[in-house]
Structure formats: structure tokens, C-alpha cells
């Protein structure tokens, strides 16, 4: 059932690609750059966030007025606040598109489990950052979010009170709250870059930035949004009365809407199940190696005598499984005698795909259990049959 659904989603995804490729040149297809677009929006968020940080004061009395000051008094403060606001939504949209595309096209298999897991962590952190960002404004929505989050955490049996205290710094709402939220908004933003490094480390040619067409388009759209629909606060939070109606940002505050229908404990359980399932996706399909078309060809090996240090295999390996090191001695063949570098295969990263074999014009790499003679025999046998 799961495989059938995934196959259908794959077909739809590829059809969508075909449709978009009719409008845009293939290397401009925005769906090929959802990761790069996420990076673009993250960069915009960091830069606009640094600007806002200069003016923000994390205290109950001054947080709201400092945000209002940026919005109303600082030249272009309203626009930069809007850029921060709408870039965060665009960031989530790009991340979700990236996730669904890679899910439907099964780009989580083999060594791509690490980009998948790190991507899930990026999504979680991005969601958390969005919620803490809304709290920092300290308007009525922020007050409601704090109350709802506190109640949800407190509902966890046994450790609920401790969780709430850990997050807010005290059992109730105290002056520790906003400095803590500010740290939890800025700190994880730094952690995002650590996860990004993990996200890229196994990918040889990641598309880290969208083409100029989509960079300009995205920035232009954000500017138009933040000018036509300026980001505004609700009324200032008041200790006298807690508001009951939540103004929803669907990309970050959806769980709080679900709280209308589920008890906090069930919502937390649902969240844990969704996250656990997301982390399990790369390991879900219980297929045999034969059914998945895997060869048991062994980790690629460098033929020391033939390697010329030309780096072609290093550039072609999509899994970053080949590194170049200074050659300790010259090679044997004429082409390899003057080499300065030697290719080394990292066993833990090699997926035995054979791409490096195809990249090497000097027969300096081989798959030990799938030699050229084996392939020739198979081809001959296939021709005879």
C-alpha cells in the first residue's frame, strides 16, 4: 500500500516537473532548487534578524514598544520587519517542498539517510524558531502562545512541570521569559548552520543557492508582500486578561490550532509519532537487496599503480566518498609517474555505485566483486541468450 502510494506520488512529481520544464528552461525549474531557496530565505532571515536584534529589548515592559519603535520610527524598519516575517513563511514553504519532493522521489535511500535526518532536524528547529519569534513580540498572541505551550508541557505526566520550568525559567511567567525566548530564538538559528553542514557533508554537488531568476523573484515577492500587507503586532500583552482567540500563522502555529480539537497530551504524542515516523522513513521499505536492484560489488578500490591524481573520480563521486591526498610515491604507469595526488576511497561513505569507475580514464579504480571481466562475461552471456 505504502509503496503504491509512493509510486503514484512519484509519478505526479515527475509530471509536475515536465509541466514546469515546458515553461522554464530545465536549469531554472524552481522545484530543483527548493533546498537552495531554503538557504536563500534563511540568509535573508539571519540578516533581517540581526537588524531587528539591534533594537529589541527583551523585557515585559519594553519588548512590545521596542518592536513598535522599529516598525514605526526606524526608517524602513516596517519593511525589514515584514521581510523577517514573510521570509520565515517562505522558508517553511521551501523546506516543506524540499521534504515532500525528496520523499516522493525516494532521495533518502542509501547514504542519503543523513541528509534526510539532518533535514528533519532543520525542519523541527525552524518550526521552534518561528514560535519563539512570535513570543518575542509580546503582544496578545504571544501571551496566548506562552499560556498554551505551558499548559501543553504541564500535561506531560511526571515531567510536565519540570519541562515548563526548563523552557520558561520559572514555574510561572516571570521576567526570565523573554530573555530566554530571545536566546532560544537566536541560539537555534546558529545550530541550523551546524545541521546544514551535516546536511551537505555527504553530497558532492549540493545546489546551495537558487539561480538568479528565482533569487530576484523570491526577494521581489517578499518585498511586495511586506509592503502591501505590513507585518503588525496585536494589542500589547496584558497581565490583567489572557486573550482567548489566536491569530494564526498556518506555517508555524498549526499545532496550536490542533489544540482546539485534541488535548495537549494527545497533541504532544501526535507530534512525537510524526517526528519518529519522519526519522524512520529512510529505513522503512523492508526490501531485500536483490529487490532493490543492489549489487554486492564491494567498496571501490584504488589501483595505486594506475592512479594519476587527476581528481576526476573525486569530482564525480556524488557521495563525497573519495578524497585526494598527497601521493607518497609515484605510480607505475607512465601517466601515473608524475602524479602529485592519490585518490583514497572512504569505506564508510562508498555505496558501491561504480560512478568513479566510469569517471576514471586510467583504469585506476575497480569494484572488487564486479570487475570489468565479470561485466564482459555478463554481457556476452546476455547476448548469447
Amino acid at each position: 500500500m505504502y509503496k503504491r502510494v509512493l509510486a503514484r506520488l512519484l509519478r505526479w512529481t515527475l509530471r509536475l516537473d515536465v509541466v514546469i520544464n515546458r515553461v522554464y528552461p530545465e536549469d531554472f525549474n524552481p522545484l530543483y532548487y527548493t533546498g537552495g531557496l531554503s538557504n536563500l530565505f534563511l540568509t535573508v532571515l539571519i540578516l533581517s534578524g540581526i537588524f531587528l536584534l539591534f533594537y529589541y529589548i527583551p523585557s515585559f515592559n519594553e519588548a512590545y514598544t521596542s518592536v513598535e519603535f522599529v516598525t514605526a520610527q526606524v526608517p524602513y524598519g516596517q519593511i525589514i520587519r515584514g521581510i523577517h516575517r514573510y521570509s520565515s513563511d517562505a522558508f517553511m514553504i521551501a523546506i516543506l517542498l524540499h521534504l515532500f519532493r525528496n520523499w516522493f522521489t525516494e532521495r533518502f535511500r542509501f547514504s542519503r539517510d543523513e541528509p534526510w535526518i539532518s533535514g528533519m532536524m532543520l525542519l523541527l528547529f525552524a518550526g521552534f524558531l518561528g514560535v519563539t519569534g512570535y513570543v518575542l513580540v509580546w503582544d496578545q498572541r504571544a501571551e496566548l502562545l506562552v499560556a498554551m505551550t505551558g499548559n501543553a508541557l504541564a500535561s506531560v505526566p511526571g515531567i510536565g512541570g519540570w519541562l515548563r520550568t526548563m523552557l520558561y525559567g520559572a514555574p510561572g511567567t516571570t521576567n526570565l521569559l523573554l530573555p530566554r525566548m530571545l536566546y532560544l530564538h537566536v541560539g537555534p538559528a546558529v545550530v541550523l548552520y551546524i545541521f546544514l553542514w551535516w546536511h551537505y557533508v555527504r553530497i558532492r554537488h549540493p545546489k546551495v543557492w537558487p539561480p538568479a531568476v528565482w533569487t530576484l523573484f523570491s526577494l521581489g515577492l517578499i518585498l511586495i508582500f511586506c509592503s502591501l500587507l505590513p507585518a503588525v503586532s496585536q494589542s500589547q500583552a496584558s497581565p490583567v486578561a489572557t486573550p482567548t482567540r489566536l491569530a494564526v500563522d498556518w506555517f508555524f502555529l498549526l499545532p496550536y490550532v490542533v489544540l482546539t480539537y485534541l488535548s495537549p497530551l494527545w497533541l504532544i504524542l501526535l507530534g512525537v509519532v510524526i517526528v519518529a515516523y519522519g526519522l524512520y522513513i529512510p529505513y522503512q521499505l523492508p526490501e531485500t537487496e536483490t529487490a532493490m536492484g543492489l549489487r554486492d560489488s564491494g567498496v571501490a578500490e584504488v589501483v595505486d599503480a594506475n592512479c594519476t591524481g587527476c581528481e576526476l573520480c573525486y569530482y564525480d563521486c556524488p557521495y563525497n566518498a573519495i578524497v585526494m591526498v598527497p601521493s607518497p610515491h609515484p605510480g607505475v604507469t607512465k601517466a601515473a609517474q608524475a602524479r602529485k595526488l592519490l585518490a583514497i576511497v572512504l569505506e564508510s561513505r562508498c555505496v558501491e555505485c561504480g560512478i568513479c569507475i566510469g569517471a576514471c580514464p586510467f583504469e585506476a579504480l575497480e569494484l572488487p566483486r564486479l570487475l570489468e571481466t565479470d561485466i564482459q562475461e555478463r554481457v556476452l552471456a546476455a547476448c548469447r541468450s
Partner: protein
Amino acid sequence: MDARAAAYGAWIAALSVLSLVCVLGIVWAEMTSVQHPEHRLVGGALIGIVLLAYSFILLFLRKGGFTGV
């Protein structure tokens, strides 16, 4: 120049004119923003339109065969 390239060329010219008008609007918004701070929002929107126009100019340059492969 074939008809396809000419059509894209005409679009590029139109977008360039639109961009120029928007740039004039941005200058006007900035010059009047001291008395009317809300004009900065107009300026922001016009910058957005210029960026959108540039993105389509790049696209049409490519689709018209003026740049790229």
C-alpha cells in the same frame, strides 16, 4: 532575428521601461518619505516590482536565446 526572439525582446524592452518607471517611483518615495513615512512602503513595493521585472528579464533573455545554452 526570428519571431520568437523578437517577441521575447519586446517583453524585455517593456519590462525595462517598467523598471525605469519603478526606479523613478522609488526615488520619489524616498524624497517624500520624511514628510510621509508611509511612502517607504510604496518604495518597498516598487523595489519588489523591479526585482520581479529583473527576474522575468533574465528568464526572457534565456528563453529568447539571447543568453545561455
